[in-house]
């Protein structure tokens, strides 16, 4: 039994141990703390890549916490798992890789970005806890465990959003986020209680195996969809998103993006793997599609009028979430119909999942460049900035790459994923595809505006002595830039190796169940 079988547990345990030791490591001084912050994040990223590789070569990884053997999911004579199970299929492993790369970049960025401030031992601990929460959410195969990790991620992000506690806005944003997110988490708990009461099981696979859609299950589904949509910031419940993203330190915002993706993961896990085929009617897919289109449109139209860079970008992230909801909603619509699935459904899912990694990477990079602008120029307002391209060439370069990717300009990865979404939604309803196109154009317009005002034009007198940001921040940004360029240069490789296995795993409900229960549907 090689140590590889313990990878699912280690991916969660390593950052958690890092968080517990972080206050101790910080006592040894600044260098030790930075080394710990970056080192543990790098180790986590490495472990998740290894896990992903293992899942690709040998199929869904099962890890049973505390049993006599790691794959002993059912005790003798039982048809239900009695322990917590980590179930890592290709989609989970993909999410873990995406999230831990974003966490690594944010940690690298934060070493220089945060060095002026006090309380950094707690910052490191909270950063690791946020990473742990995100990874736990995507790797677990147990509903209640999902809730616990969701709460770890939420509570850590409240503390991190309020990190600059002398800004009244930061405390206000944190409080707002806290109220919304706690209510969401409690709704998830109530939904879990519904499912537990019906089927006497909290394992996702066991619930999915037994699930027959009835009145109680419908209420649980509504609760889960509302709460998880709230947590990932789609339109009717998006109020907290711009505030929290704007007020959090930039490195943390990069990780908050990944955490919102983990909530999105939960939404799709519930829709595809737990309810899946028993959803039956088209009500739920259309709800998701309409939520997606509304988010896309309202998010982008709020974004174009913003004056503050990070707030503008935060509204764009509301709009980008819409693309993923649209793509995977179309996939869900085609789930029960193999013909439709082959025609457009699978393309839409590939587009949605590919957009998910693209979005996390370029949005994280955009927030990091916005943080670099604050750091160098000392202002959040777009009107105070100008002519920074000469003094900050590297930041400008990376901003241009990220902005081109988010706007979907042709060679970049954002274009590929958006194209997949356009062509598949066109098959369902042409108007959806047109809405997505319009959103894309408005996104481009908005980022051209930012680029022109902040980087081009005459240099403002106040910004004369602005220098390029320190190397740690540049390194953090370049990690994400390299990933974006890699995805841009090898779209076919990333589609067939990264995205397709994930999409297949998400569609394959019977496989998800039989990995735990054996036999399955």
């Amino acid at each position, binding site marked *: 039994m090689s140590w590889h079988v313990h990878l699912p547990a280690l991916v969660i345990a390593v950052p*958690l141990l890092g968080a517990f030791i972080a206050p101790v490591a910080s006592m040894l001084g600044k260098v030790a703390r930075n080394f710990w912050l970056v080192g543990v994040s790098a180790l986590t990223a490495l472990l998740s890549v290894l896990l992903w590789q293992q899942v690709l070569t040998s199929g869904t990884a099962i890890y049973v916490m505390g049993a006599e053997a790691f794959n002993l999911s059912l005790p003798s004579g039982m048809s239900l798992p009695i322990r917590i199970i980590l179930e890592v299929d290709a989609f989970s492993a993909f999410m873990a890789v995406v999230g831990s790369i974003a966490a690594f970049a944010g940690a690298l960025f934060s070493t220089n970005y945060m060095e002026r401030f006090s309380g950094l031992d707690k910052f490191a601990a909270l950063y690791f806890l946020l990473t742990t929460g995100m990874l736990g959410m995507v790797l677990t195969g147990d509903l209640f465990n999902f809730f616990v990790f969701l709460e770890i991620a939420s509570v850590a992000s409240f503390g991190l959003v309020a990190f600059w506690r002398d800004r009244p806005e930061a405390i206000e944003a944190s409080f707002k986020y806290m109220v919304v997110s706690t209510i969401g988490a409690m709704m998830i708990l109530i939904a879990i209680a519904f499912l537990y009461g019906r089927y006497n099981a909290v394992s996702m696979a066991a619930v999915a195996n037994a699930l027959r859609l009835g009145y*109680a299950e419908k209420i649980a589904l509504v609760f889960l969809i509302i709460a998880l949509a709230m947590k990932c910031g789609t339109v009717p419940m998006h109020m907290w998103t711009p505030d929290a993203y704007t007020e959090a330190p930039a490195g943390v915002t990069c990780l908050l993006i990944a955490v919102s993706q983990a909530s999105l993961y939960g939404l799709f896990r519930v829709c595809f793997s737990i309810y899946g085929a028993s959803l039956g009617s088209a009500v739920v897919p259309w709800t998701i599609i309409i939520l997606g289109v509304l988010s896309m449109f309202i998010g982008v139209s709020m974004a174009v009028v913003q004056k503050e860079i990070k707030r503008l970008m935060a509204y764009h992230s509301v709009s980008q979430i819409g693309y993923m909801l649209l793509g995977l909603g179309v996939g869900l619509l085609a789930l029960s119909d193999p013909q439709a699935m082959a025609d457009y459904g699978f393309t839409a899912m590939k587009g949605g999942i590919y957009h998910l990694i693209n979005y996390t990477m370029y949005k994280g990079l955009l927030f990091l460049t916005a943080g670099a602008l604050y750091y160098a120029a000392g202002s959040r307002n777009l009107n105070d900035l100008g002519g920074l391209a000469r003094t900050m060439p590297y930041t400008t370069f990376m901003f241009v790459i990220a902005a081109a990717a988010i706007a979907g300009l042709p060679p970049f990865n954002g274009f590929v994923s958006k194209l997949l979404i356009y062509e598949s939604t066109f098959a369902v309803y042409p108007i959806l595809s047109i809405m997505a196109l319009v959103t894309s154009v408005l996104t481009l317009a908005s980022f051209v505006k930012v680029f022109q005002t902040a980087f081009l034009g005459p240099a403002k007198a106040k910004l004369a002595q602005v220098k390029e940001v320190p190397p740690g921040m540049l390194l953090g940004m370049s990690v994400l830039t390299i990933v974006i360029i890699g995805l841009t240069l090898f779209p076919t490789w990333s589609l067939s190796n990264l995205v397709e296995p994930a999409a297949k795993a998400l569609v394959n409900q019977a496989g998800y169940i039989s990995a735990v229960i054996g036999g399955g549907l």
Partner: protein
Amino acid sequence: MKRQVLFLVALIIVVGTLWGGLSRIHQFGDPGAAPMDDYYLHNAQAERSANNIVTSIVFDYRGFDTLGEAAVLFTAVCSVLVVFRKGGHN
């Protein structure tokens, strides 16, 4: 005032829906067949030699949840300490 009345109407409707859903889980006091819980009740004492079944679930069968729970408490402490930290530059 009008809003309160409106909310009262909404409350009655939503409570009715929720109660309907909750009552359909199972009758109060009669969970029916509960294979997972009965496994714990019958086997936990022999497997883990703890008299308190709830504790053996909390710390053994679902010990990972408890680790998460301890981590949430740690997170809350860290967050409170961040919010009320004594400033001063590094």
